[in-house]
């Protein structure tokens, strides 16, 4: 640590840190010497990266392979309208260096996988996990355990936030509990919706991500007591908070990285003939409508989505398609659609399995594709 020095400009910049007695110049030097990897530059990653950059973490790594989408701007405060369609990692780097030119920022514009996770994580001191799916959560956790890195964890869903510090090196030289000690196995796919399906209130990642940044700073500087062995919960809807104890589980064994899709129950799609979903394009649908073909159009989205935009289809939400199966029977084609095509494919599979209907067609790309390619006056969301 002794080789790290703060310039006059840095001393001025970080004056409000340096005047905190227990933080002082030594704490600031530790931040400057630190290499922190932020995985996911989205809802959580935005405040984490902004605050860590502002606070003077010397070297920030960003893992994100995605591009900025308009619907990200409701909460991903790193980005502006001009960034839509552009690389998150590259634009995040630009924004962070504009905020604090004293930093080094490395971007990893890749999807983190079992093949590259250990190599990337090994280059950093601390990891902040702000990813959005269970496969990556377990992958990041296991790689941190194998590489002996502290994993500052945060997760959000609708109004609910969780924060913890996993695999923290305690004073006795032993590592604290990790994510698998808390949750040995992930939920089966479909049981817990992700943010895209379930939604998230825009300010929540700002609150929870700021707490995550705070824990990174505490871990790096050694100031305060990190949230290791504890899980913080916030219910933003009721403003109830709880801090629960997390224990090490003697049955937790992490010996190497595995196939996390398989572990999370996500199997490669094996389409047999009976299970195949037939598709029509939005152009074909337009043709059927223009020619007044005797097709039936069914929308399996939720009523609130139907209110935003609809194609005058009959509304039968996915959860009730089997109860309403009779309504899918029709002399000609029945075209089923949802927002982008995934739920309608699921509905068709369910109906094909239960009723052996062979006149069901999925609208490829859903109402979003229709809005994009046929009727641009339709409201998108």
């Amino acid at each position, binding site marked *: 640590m002794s080789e790290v020095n703060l310039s006059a400009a840095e001393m001025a910049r970080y004056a409000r840190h340096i005047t905190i007695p227990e933080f002082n110049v030594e704490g600031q030097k530790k931040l400057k010497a630190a290499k922190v990897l932020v995985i996911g530059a989205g809802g959580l990653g935005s405040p984490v990266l902004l605050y860590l950059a502002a606070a003077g973490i010397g070297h920030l790594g960003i893992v994100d392979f995605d591009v900025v989408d308009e619907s990200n701007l409701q909460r991903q405060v790193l980005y502006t309208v001009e960034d839509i369609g552009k690389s998150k990692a590259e634009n995040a780097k630009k924004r962070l260096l504009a905020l604090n030119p004293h930093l080094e920022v490395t971007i990893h514009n890749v999807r983190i996988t079992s093949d590259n996770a250990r190599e990337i994580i090994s280059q950093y001191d601390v990891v902040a996990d702000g990813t959005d799916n269970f496969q990556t959560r377990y992958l990041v956790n296991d790689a941190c355990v194998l590489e002996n890195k502290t994993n500052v964890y945060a997760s959000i869903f609708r109004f609910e936030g*969780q924060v913890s510090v996993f695999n923290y090196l305690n004073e006795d030289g032993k590592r604290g509990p990790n994510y698998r000690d808390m949750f040995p196995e992930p939920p089966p796919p479909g049981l817990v919706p992700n943010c895209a399906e379930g939604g998230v209130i825009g300010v929540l990642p700002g609150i929870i991500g700021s707490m995550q940044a705070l824990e990174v700073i505490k871990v790096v500087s050694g100031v305060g007591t990190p949230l290791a062995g504890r899980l913080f919960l916030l219910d933003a809807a009721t403003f109830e908070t709880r801090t*629960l104890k997390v224990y090490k589980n003697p049955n937790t064994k992490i010996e190497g990285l595995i196939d996390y899709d398989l572990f999370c129950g996500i199997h490669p799609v094996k389409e047999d003939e009976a299970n195949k979903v037939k598709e029509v394009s939005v152009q074909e649908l337009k043709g059927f409508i223009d020619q007044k073909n005797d097709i039936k159009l069914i929308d399996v989205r939720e009523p609130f989505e139907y209110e935003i935009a609809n194609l005058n289809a009959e509304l039968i939400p996915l959860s009730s398609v089997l109860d309403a199966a009779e309504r899918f029977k029709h002399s000609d084609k029945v075209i089923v659609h949802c927002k982008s095509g995934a739920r309608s494919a699921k509905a068709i599979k369910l109906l094909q399995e239960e009723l052996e209907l062979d006149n069901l067609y999925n609208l490829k790309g859903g109402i979003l594709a229709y809005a994009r390619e046929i009727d641009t006056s339709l409201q998108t969301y």
Partner: protein
Amino acid sequence: MAKIIIPTPLRKFTDNQSTFDTTGVTVKEAVAELITTHGDLAKHLLDDDQKIRSFIRIYLGEDDINALDKEDTAVAENDIISIVPAIAGGSI
């Protein structure tokens, strides 16, 4: 009466109620009472052997019931039971 706090992802099975008052004197009884009232919760909380699913933790106060007497953990008047599910959102 003891209270069970329902996490956001499971509230759609409890008519959006965030808490449930229970007279159960063990965690097992309290969870059974909750499931009797809100039947759709059963498959989300319990596995085929009627055990709490491995991606859900049950807490009494700030303690994991696995560090106490598991599902037989005694529940006293005014205790708070938390159901804590794994959630994964953050980036999207």
